[in-house]
């Protein structure tokens, strides 16, 4: 450990990359251009949005569990949307729509990628900041504006968008079809355009930073898996989000300027609309061309974070580092050609259905490789159960459970009966909802010391994990069976169908589990905000990790390293290497300082190094025997 203390924290004169400028409150906390502060802004906004979206889900879960019961308290807060204490059908649809939108875009895309890409990319590749700090700042403020507009739609007469988070036209295009398709939908679309702009600015920044600003020695194959995940996620975002904007702009045209991109042959009641020649299916193609990569945009950062955290806490190198990267690349490429599996039963040409089924099931292969590699990483490890590690293991469990049901849904023939039922709800809430949020929480617990210089309480973390983990399964596991009984999603109440009534008791169990899971988040929120101010002060490398971010001082300087940026000599996963003094060797330690633990393949065929190593081993036969 002593070998890497290259830092002299007082040596501010060497801090030459950044001129010293006076920082006001405004430039430090609000319009900050420091990637670490922007990461925190993304995180806290993401947490607030997550709490809101969770609250919305509790509201509609109440309705599903007790469809015949009045909750007068709801009227106090929601007014005409819950007249007599019962949520109205159109507001119910608004709730599910906004819950989905917030969770997918604002929490699991911006909250997850925005936070950890911003925080970790410069720190883990050894850069002072992002390639364009200003663009980075804009990225946050576009995101923030998008959040404000989306939430603003709750305060208008006709209510928020309520055509489902996929906003399929014509329902989303015609205010006469549903009240949420009035001003609420316009706000949804505007918010989404701003969000995509934010996401693109972020993505371009991440990619250019990773490609251009790596420190000396940090070649692509020495980058931690987190960076690989963020890199590929950013590429996915850059290539797919613009398509959503295209779709959104056309929808705005259809809604406001009388065009017919998505509309044709529509009669509302007896009023014949003039639109001709459009196709609602076009929207679905455009939406899912983003929408499917989007679920990988959500899950890949969680995968990267979990890989890193599992390796650190199992005190073992990640198993199959190269395979992990190739599988990420495979997922990235394949995710562009699977979007049609959301459309098997839309009336799309059945030939396409067959093709999309093939590509969809192929994507299960890299996912399986990742899962097995995680399991192999745990095997014969020496696992420290920090809260972050618990959440990483939980993430793997959810990824398996939810991923396997994807094999049903990806199969076009099986999808005929499962499409848009609760089976789908259960599937994606496990595989991209719970798994991604667990990856995010793992990241928060793990990198909290890097963000705030303090530690979170691990005991509250355990409490948070176990309640959330158990309750998430209690919420989502039974929902599969509702789907297998043919219960459709987005149903306001199960009262109209005789065959659904047997599921109301299950709904009560699910709702109670959801409420308990939501209350368990109080443990997290308290822990998070309390520890920012009062947590135990962190040490520089509290987890004994190898990556570069743990070589920066606890004080979190603007520019990250007070002195020179450290040079990287090895891959990030040298944990418990035989012959080493400690059970971890940071990336900044050259092989010349670890002669007793070097292995032949460490030198990547460099014959000079191999010769030096051989000579050393001949001189020190005892060290060699200890391996």
């Amino acid at each position: 450990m002593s070998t890497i203390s290259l830092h002299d924290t007082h040596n501010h004169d060497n801090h030459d990359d950044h001129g010293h400028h006076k920082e006001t409150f405004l430039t430090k906390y609000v319009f900050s251009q420091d990637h670490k502060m922007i990461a925190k802004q993304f995180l806290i906004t993401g947490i607030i949005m997550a709490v809101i979206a969770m609250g919305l889900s509790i509201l509609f879960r109440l309705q599903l569990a007790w469809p015949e019961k009045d909750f007068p308290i709801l009227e106090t807060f929601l007014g005409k949307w819950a007249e007599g204490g019962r949520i109205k059908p159109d507001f119910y649809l608004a709730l599910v729509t906004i819950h989905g939108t917030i969770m997918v875009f604002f929490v699991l895309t911006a909250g997850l990628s925005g936070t950890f890409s911003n925080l970790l990319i410069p720190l883990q590749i050894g850069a002072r900041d992002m390639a364009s700090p200003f663009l980075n700042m804009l990225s946050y403020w576009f995101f923030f504006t998008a959040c404000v507009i989306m939430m603003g739609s709750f305060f208008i007469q006709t209510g928020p968008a309520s055509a489902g988070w996929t906003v399929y036209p014509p329902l989303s295009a015609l205010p006469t079809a549903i009240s949420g398709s009035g001003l609420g939908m316009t706000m949804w679309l505007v918010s989404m355009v701003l969000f995509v702009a934010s996401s693109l600015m972020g993505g371009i920044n991440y990619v250019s930073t990773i490609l251009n600003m790596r420190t000396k020695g940090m070649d692509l194959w020495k980058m931690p898996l987190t960076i690989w995940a963020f890199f590929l996620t950013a590429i996915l975002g850059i290539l797919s989000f613009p398509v959503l904007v295209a779709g959104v702009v056309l929808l705005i045209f259809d809604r406001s300027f009388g065009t017919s991109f998505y509309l044709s042959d529509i009669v509302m009641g007896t009023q014949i609309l003039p639109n001709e020649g459009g196709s609602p299916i076009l929207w679905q193609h455009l939406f899912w061309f983003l929408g499917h990569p989007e679920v990988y945009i959500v899950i890949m950062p969680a995968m990267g974070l979990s890989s890193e955290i599992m390796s650190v806490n199992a005190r073992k190198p990640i198993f199959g580092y190269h395979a992990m990267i190739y599988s990420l690349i495979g997922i990235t490429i394949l995710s562009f050609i699977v979007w049609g599996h959301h459309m098997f039963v839309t009336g799309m040409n059945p030939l396409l259905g067959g093709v999309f089924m093939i590509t969809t099931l192929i994507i299960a292969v890299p996912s399986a490789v990742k899962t097995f590699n995680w399991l192999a990483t745990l095997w014969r490890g020496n696992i420290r159960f920090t809260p972050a590690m618990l959440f990483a293991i939980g993430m793997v469990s959810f990824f398996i459970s939810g991923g396997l049901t994807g094999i049903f849904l990806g199969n076009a023939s099986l999808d005929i009966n499962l499409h848009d039922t609760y089976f789908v709800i259960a599937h994606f809430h496990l595989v991209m909802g719970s798994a991604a949020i667990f990856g995010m929480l793992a990241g928060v617990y793990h990198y909290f010391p890097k963000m705030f210089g303090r530690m979170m309480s691990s005991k509250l973390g355990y409490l948070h994990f176990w309640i959330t983990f158990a309750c998430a399964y209690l919420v989502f596991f039974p929902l599969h069976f509702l789907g297998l009984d043919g219960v459709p999603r987005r149903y306001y109440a199960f009262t109209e169908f005789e065959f659904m009534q047997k599921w109301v008791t299950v709904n009560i169990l699910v709702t109670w589990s959801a409420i308990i899971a939501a209350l368990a988040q109080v443990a997290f929120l308290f822990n998070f905000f309390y520890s920012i101010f009062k947590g135990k002060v962190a040490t520089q490398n509290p987890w004994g990790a190898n990556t570069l971010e743990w070589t920066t001082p606890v004080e979190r300087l603007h520019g990250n390293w007070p002195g020179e940026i450290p040079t990287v000599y090895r891959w990030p996963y040298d944990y418990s290497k035989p012959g080493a003094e400690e059970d971890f060797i940071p990336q900044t330690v050259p092989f010349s300082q670890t002669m007793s633990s070097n292995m032949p393949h460490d030198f990547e065929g460099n014959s000079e190094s191999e010769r030096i190593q051989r000579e050393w081993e001949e001189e020190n036969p005892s060290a060699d025997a200890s391996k």
Partner: protein
Amino acid sequence: MSLRKFISNKTIAALAVILTAFANTSAFAQAAAAETAKKPVDMGPIYKSVIFYAMAFLLVCLFVAIIGKALKVYELTREAQDKPKGIDWNKVNGVLFALFLIVGLYGVYWEYTVHGNMILPEAASEHGKKIDQMFNITLILTTIVFIATHILLFAFAYFYKYTNKRKAYYYPHNNTIERIWTIVPAFVLTILVLMGFLTWRSIFYKIEDPNNKPISIEITSSQFAWAIRYAGADGVVGTKNYKLITSTNALGIDFKDKNTLDDQSADEMVIPVNKPVRLILTSKDVIHSFYMPHFRVQLNTVPGMTSYFEFTPTITTEEMKAKTNDPTFKYLFLCNKICGDGHYKMQKEVKVVSMAEYEAWVKEQPAYLTDDLKKEFNIPVTPAATAVAADTTAKDTSAVKTKQLALKN
């Protein structure tokens, strides 16, 4: 500042905030009630129950805080006495993972047997049987993987929990193993893909058997109702055009097309067993989804686009009642794509009956072409029964025309 003190201060502060919030809202509510002179709702007990739940939760929080504090005190005293660390949290969590595995496995078993018995009965259609078969194969394969990987995951968590006596095994990669677990899933998935692909083709690419022509039924969805149109004696569902939709001609049927003249409307879908049915799916306003869960049939109805689904029912309603042991059993179809406020209500009953019953039923169904529509389309009000009467058609039409003119005038 000790944690306990913090908690108690916080608790009191939080309580105060909640109380003031409720006091305010109740005051507002009262004012509002007085203003609009609505029937007064007594919010007192409601607020009491809300406060009760809030207090109960705060009590739980307090309880957690006290336990946390006790644990901390315990650990500090152990440390002060130079004894080994009080609670080995790695062990606690490792054991919890093992317990979670055992309880979870039982839970999965319980779910499969209890909730698994509440799902749809066997498929009541020819292609549905293939789907069910493939579902079962997929279910068995995924359940094996699900159980096995979870046993490994949680067992590793339990067995390899941290001890300072051991060092983790440095094992960065093994190409052979990785190749195996790439190729095996790829192989299994290839089989599933092939099966799925062939089944998919067999469902959507039907070769028509000239001796067993399907019955055509047209379904039109609108907010929030289904319209069913039978083809009538000619077996052809006539054309329609959305521009012809009026309050009398709700589907916009174009009666200039002779095929439409015998089309019938029906309130429920009655289909004969073992006879192929060709569904013609259309929508009037937004996208809906025609979903018949018992027959494993689903296809969206899209405005501006007609889609088709052909299937053959194999079990009559009566047989299904016996099979499911449920005398109230009903087949139905419902809407499975978000379409507006009334989405959760769109349904129609389906009856699968014998051919004879079907033929008797179908005769009873009214024609779409009502007298009002006949006037609109200049069709004789009394249909031509014989060939001789056909001559009078022209005259009748002109008569109608003159009548209409007379009306207009």
